[in-house]
């Protein structure tokens, strides 16, 4: 009996916070434009007259991208930390925060996305293969 009014009050607070958040979405401008989000959502069959839900999807996508980029940045910094430090290299390291395929693939692997970067390009699919396997 005592839990019910507390749980109901908690629910009211949560609902109020959610309604405030949805109202604030109209003031918040996500980095991904609304037109782009609407284009891809319409392409996938998502149909909703409420603009706030479109903004919610844009914010969720921005969050995903930011998390992946942050993880890739951590991998990049960790990789540079293993390199022996020199005075000359220190100044160059700050400028070398580059997003590479290696860091991106490591970051995306945690999110269940397997990205494999091709090491080299060959002129034919069978190039570099053993003659035995080539005959088969």
């Amino acid at each position, binding site marked *: 009996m005592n839990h019910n009014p507390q749980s109901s009050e908690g629910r009211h607070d949560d609902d109020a916070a959610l309604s405030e958040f949805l109202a604030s979405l109209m003031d918040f401008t996500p980095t991904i434009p609304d037109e782009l989000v609407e284009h891809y959502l319409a392409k996938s069959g998502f149909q909703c007259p409420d603009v706030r839900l479109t903004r919610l999807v844009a*914010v969720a996508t921005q969050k995903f991208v930011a998390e992946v980029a942050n993880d890739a940045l951590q991998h990049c910094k960790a990789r540079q930390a293993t390199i022996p430090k020199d005075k000359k290299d220190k100044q160059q390291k700050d400028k070398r925060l580059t997003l590479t395929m290696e860091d991106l693939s490591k970051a995306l692997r945690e999110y269940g996305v397997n990205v494999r970067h091709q090491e080299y390009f060959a002129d034919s699919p069978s190039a570099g293969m053993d003659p035995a396997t080539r005959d088969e």
Partner: protein
Amino acid sequence: MNPLQNQSTRKSTLKSNLKVKAKKKKKNRGDSDVQVAEAPSDLSFGVARVAISKICQSTGFKRTQLCALETFTNVAVKYLEATGKSAASFSNASNRTDSNLFDLINAFHDVCSVQGFPTASEMHKRELLRSGALREIMKFANLSKELPCAKAIPCPSFSQCPNPVQPINTNTSTGCHRPNPRGSHIPRWLPDFPPESSYKDCDKVIKERKNGEKLWEQSIPVEICGDSIEGNRKVLQTNEVCGKKLNDGRMELAKERGKLKFNIGRQKEQAFGLEVNMNSGFCRGGKRVCWNHSEMNDMFEDGAMIVREKKVVDTNI
């Protein structure tokens, strides 16, 4: 199952292996596996790439490899599409076409299930509005700085375009919708009607032509002019035809009409001033239409003109 896993793997590897697999041909078995990567839309992909690079820059990156940026953009686009597809499927499973917040929260649960989110183990016990994934998104929106896109996407103004193309109706207030003043029965993709002034002269002042000619419809009302009759010539009385009077709004003949002359033959017909060769034309064979005013009143019965044969009187020219 993470919907992003297989698709993004294929897309990213295919994109980097484009040169290697460009010469591969499709199997003759008709397999549905497409070996050649599909090129995304140029404009939407370009805009997405700008937005992703802006987010990466805000995170702390100064430079990026082009292939890494394109792969990242592909993954983000697939994330967007997977979220929308999942929400649409949830709404369709509930016999609805429009998705709502609950469908979207369930879609977030699907997409974030691999990485995980708080209260994921109690997902089925808790209410959807108190979802941990939604809380995470709310925290991110409250804590992160606002990063507007680098360039505003130009929205085509339909008032300037002569033949505007109707965009995909996403039922949002941000879309550019052109009101259809012509009515809903006319498709919007059809061009506008030409202005009325180009084909209607209702409000225009009737201008006289060079020689004082006027259109027959715009003639002034005529009066009965019996004095100008020469001989048996008579001018058609426009106001009294068959004993009937015409309304004022109807067309009326000119006051004085010019004499009509045709080829003069041997035989003349002195009737109504028309010198017609009775052996040719429509009067051939002696059958002719003669307009004799004195006889017209007798002939006209119920407004019907009676054609009768009449002998041609030979006259000397």
